[in-house]
């Protein structure tokens, strides 16, 4: 029985692979639930700070924060790319990176310079491989979108904007639509769009009134702080969504891999049985032939 041992070995190895993919699927499923919860928990903060920022932008007229002022000429663009740290999650990172590359190509054709800030290992690896200029990076976020880890890299970009290094800042990430569907999106982060400076719908009519705030210690520093936190909250939300997307994409990819392994095993088992039966038939016919010859 020549080939049968090899087939048996092959089946064994595919079974081992299937065990791994199945385990990864289950790990991703449990992480996905947590990631989705985290994404939802981040929403109230995003909503509240958006309302506060909206109230503030209406209330205070003498000081306009640089984040709100649109620049006429756009020469340099800052891009924040959110990707996952690890692979094995289907086309998630590829999709978002393709969008980035296409967009960067158009920008460069228009004569704009692009600098990137990478959140996540996959994007960083890709960007430095293809030679984009990376100004800041965060890798190894783990499973929680920790704001302490994001602050540094984000500050580089925000400072770049206030110091006129960038005229515009965009963010790319995977928006979580549902477990089966994630969509790569590009959003303008700075200057803050009017849409972002409007209070959410839940904001009551009463609080849409114009408040004449008392600022403590003084208006400028309080407004600066709130604007920075608002942008950070937007980025945090994007990272949280990307993480939820990552886990669900991984779960789906690993499920498909386990199913595929199952199919391969079935087929190999069939081939194995066939070859075994063929060998038995051959042996029998040899014995019968031998007996007839005697």
């Amino acid at each position: 029985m020549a080939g049968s041992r090899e087939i048996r070995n092959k089946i064994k190895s595919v079974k081992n692979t299937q065990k791994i993919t199945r385990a990864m699927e289950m790990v991703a499923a449990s992480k996905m639930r947590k990631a989705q919860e985290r994404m939802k928990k981040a929403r109230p903060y995003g909503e509240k700070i958006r309302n506060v920022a909206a109230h503030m932008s209406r209330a205070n007229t003498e000081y306009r924060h640089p984040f709100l002022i649109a620049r006429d000429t756009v020469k340099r663009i800052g891009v924040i790319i959110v990707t996952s740290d690890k692979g094995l999650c289907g086309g998630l990172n590829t999709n978002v990176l393709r969008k980035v590359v296409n967009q960067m190509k158009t920008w460069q054709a228009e004569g704009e310079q692009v600098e990137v800030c990478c959140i996540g290992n996959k994007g960083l690896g890709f960007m430095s491989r293809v030679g984009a200029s990376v100004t800041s990076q965060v890798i190894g976020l783990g499973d929680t979108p920790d704001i302490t880890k994001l602050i540094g890299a984000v500050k580089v970009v925000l400072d770049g904007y206030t110091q006129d290094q960038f005229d515009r800042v965009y963010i790319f990430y995977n928006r979580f639509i549902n477990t089966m569907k994630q969509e790569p999106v590009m959003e303008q982060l700075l200057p803050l769009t009017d849409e972002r400076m409007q209070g959410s719908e839940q904001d009551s009519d009463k609080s849409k009134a114009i408040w004449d705030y008392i600022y403590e210690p003084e208006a400028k520093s309080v407004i600066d702080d709130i604007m920075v936190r608002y942008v950070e909250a937007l980025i945090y939300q994007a990272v949280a969504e990307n993480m939820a997307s990552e886990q669900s994409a991984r779960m789906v990819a690993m499920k498909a891999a386990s199913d595929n392994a199952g199919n391969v095993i079935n087929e190999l088992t069939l081939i194995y049985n066939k070859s075994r039966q063929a060998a038995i038939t051959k042996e029998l016919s040899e014995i019968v032939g031998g007996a007839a010859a005697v």
Partner: protein
Amino acid sequence: MGTIFHLDIVSAEESIYSGPVEFLVAPAQMGEVGIYPRHTPMLTRIKSGMVRIKAQLKEEELVYVSGGMLEVQPDVVTILADTAVRSHDLDEAKALEAKRAAEEAMKNRESELDYAKAQAELIEAMAQLAAIDKLRKRGH
């Protein structure tokens, strides 16, 4: 209305408190502030410390916040709590760290942005995915 106001304490990671309260004490940057309903609108930074909350027919509650922002409207108060200990110097140090890491990573690579290479790499990855998809549909 008049004797209570709505309070929300939220941090980037979760909603900490939400409900009607009678009275509130928060550690504002310029000193502790006590807020009763119909307080004049105010925006201030708060230090890390305890926020004392008195809700109707309830014992006083203490909530710890590690700094943040406080917005006061006559009948709505919002505390945006920080999840991290923040200070200007600390943020600066983190920014420098992120920059340095990126510069280091930049050293070991070619200078020009090679779109052809980027696209080739992406196309290859997409082709691999498409092939996997096709194989899956065929039932392998």
